[in-house]
């Protein structure tokens, strides 16, 4: 069965090919550098902590994944999902049994490398949190300075009344390509929070898609900090398929140097999804005149008794604020860093894994200091 799906995905990718900027979904992100590179396939090692009571981490190939795998992430329309589905070597299956509460975060690390010749890998993760369970999953993507392409797909299925926190920390090397999809299916009254934290790579595209059920609560947090000539594109899609669900989305971006970023947030409210409460916000801090941001909300509302709001801002550091800090003895560079940090602060404060929050603060400061040295 899986083999059939993979074969279909292979065919589908052959038909679709890599998207171009004529494709609305890829208008501001050219994947030509990926399309024209000859990558050798490699399996980026996925590592995760050992099995504990109540939950399982196993290889996909050795797990009963048939009911879930490739049932949610759309390989028929998304070329990169098709590419992954056709080509993933093996992957991780994380299963949290019904009613089990996993206190410690489940850590997954994906380490990519290329030495001399460009490499590609298609990490695949399937997370199933059964009804009433609770878990925190951390995916960390990193690698060396080589020209590698990481094309991960994660499917996350959360049962009724489950509580799941998903973190993705992306700190790929300076020459990396990274195109990912996180596909989320939420049950009734499920509470899901995603935190997309993006720092690394040369060309990065992240899709986060969530389908909500009745009473689901879905929070999507995002932070991206780009400099140099980095390009990052975050697409999110929240599907309010059923009534009484809430979604809160806050993505914040910091752009320096010649970097560019895209934010596209789709919210669908289906016809019978009454009492939907959806809020989307994208805020960008542009620290250089040469940086470019494209931000676009896309709301499609078919129900009539809903509350949907969206807003996007693009701003610079407030010179009055900088002077105020200076006038109290805080040096110019520190004043700027403090204001940038303050901008990112509400996203950082939402990170509930202490080790991750510490790392995040460190990354932010390192990147800010690097920018000032330029």
């Amino acid at each position: 069965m899986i083999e059939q799906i993979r074969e279909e995905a292979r065919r589908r990718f052959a038909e679709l090919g890599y998207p171009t900027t004529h494709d609305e979904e890829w208008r501001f992100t050219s994947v030509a550098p990926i399309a024209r590179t000859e990558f050798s396939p490699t399996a980026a090692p996925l590592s995760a902590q050992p099995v504990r009571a109540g939950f399982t981490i196993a290889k996909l190939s050795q797990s009963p994944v048939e009911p879930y795998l490739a049932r949610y992430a759309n390989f028929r329309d998304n070329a990169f999902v098709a590419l992954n589905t056709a080509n993933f070597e093996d992957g991780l299956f994380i299963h949290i049994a019904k009613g089990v509460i996993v206190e410690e975060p489940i850590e997954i690390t994906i380490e990519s490398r290329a030495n001399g010749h460009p490499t590609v890998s298609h990490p695949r993760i399937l997370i199933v949190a059964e009804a009433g369970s609770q878990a925190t999953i951390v995916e960390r993507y990193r690698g060396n300075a080589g020209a590698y392409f990481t094309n991960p797909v994660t499917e996350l299925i959360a049962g009724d009344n489950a509580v799941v926190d998903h973190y993705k920390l992306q700190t790929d090397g300076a020459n990396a390509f990274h195109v990912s999809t996180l596909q989320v299916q939420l049950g009734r009254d499920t509470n899901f929070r995603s935190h997309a934290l993006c720092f690394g790579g040369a060309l990065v595209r992240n899709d986060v898609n969530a389908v909500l059920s009745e009473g689901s609560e879905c929070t999507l947090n995002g932070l991206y900090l780009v400099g140099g000539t980095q390009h990052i594109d975050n697409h999110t899609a929240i599907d309010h398929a059923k009534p009484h669900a809430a979604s809160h989305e806050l993505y914040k971006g910091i752009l320096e140097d010649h970097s560019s970023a895209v934010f596209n947030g789709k919210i669908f409210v289906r016809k019978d999804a009454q009492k939907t409460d959806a809020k989307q916000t994208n805020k960008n801090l542009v620290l250089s005149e040469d940086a470019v941001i494209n931000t676009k909300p896309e709301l499609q509302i078919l129900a009539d008794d809903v509350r949907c709001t969206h807003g996007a801002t693009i701003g610079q550091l407030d010179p009055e604020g900088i002077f105020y800090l200076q006038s109290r003895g805080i040096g110019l560079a520190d004043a700027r860093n403090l204001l940038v940090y303050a901008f990112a602060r509400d996203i950082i404060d939402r990170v509930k894994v202490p080790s991750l929050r510490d790392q995040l603060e460190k990354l932010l400061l390192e990147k800010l200091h690097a920018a000032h040295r330029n």
Partner: protein
Amino acid sequence: MSLLEIKNLHANVAGREILKGINLSVDAGEVHAIMGPNGSGKSTLAQVLSGRDLYQVTAGEVLYDGKILLDMAPEDRARDGIFMAFQYPVEIPGVSNLYFLKAALNAARKHRGEPDLDAMDFFALVREKMALMEMDESLLNRAVNTGFSGGEKKRNEIFQMAVLEPRLAILDETDSGLDIDALKVVANGVNALRSPERAMIVVTHYQRLLNYIVPDYVHVLAEGRIVKSGGKELALELEESGYAEMVEAV
């Protein structure tokens, strides 16, 4: 030698001359009030002294403790003991008052070659000064000035001044927009900081503040120049006759 010596100071904003030759010397221990109508250049003078780069100094010089003030970066002026209470304190979302104060205080201590204040001593100092300003401790964990009322912002300025213990304090229209109760609290805070080592320049439009902060000297600023100087009685004279008469009489 005076703590502050301003000689023939001229300054422009956006090509327009605002200060047209200010001369003023301020000694340690003195409180000088600078009064004047709107647009006379009072706030410009305060901002030039604190280092705001919106203003270009075109002539004259300012010596602070014998140093050429105008060559110093704003943060160096602050570390060296100059404090300006802003007419419009700036909101800094995401930075807590506590963190901000600690960074400011330790920057000045580092400049003086002193170690960072430890957490206990810092907190004791902050509590003492908050009590002085009748401020609620919850303000410490709130973002700097963010969502504060006008009165809370002005109190927060004087609170910062109390913690930082400057040698030269410049109060830029700290009284405007305050009700009488808030004005008294602010004035008490300022008076508690009066000392033989510290000088203050109180910039104000209204005589009312000077009932509570009694100055040693009063200067009237009009059209970018000090047109009259005198003792505290000058403020009362102004209250009676108004600026127009005094400015015209010059």
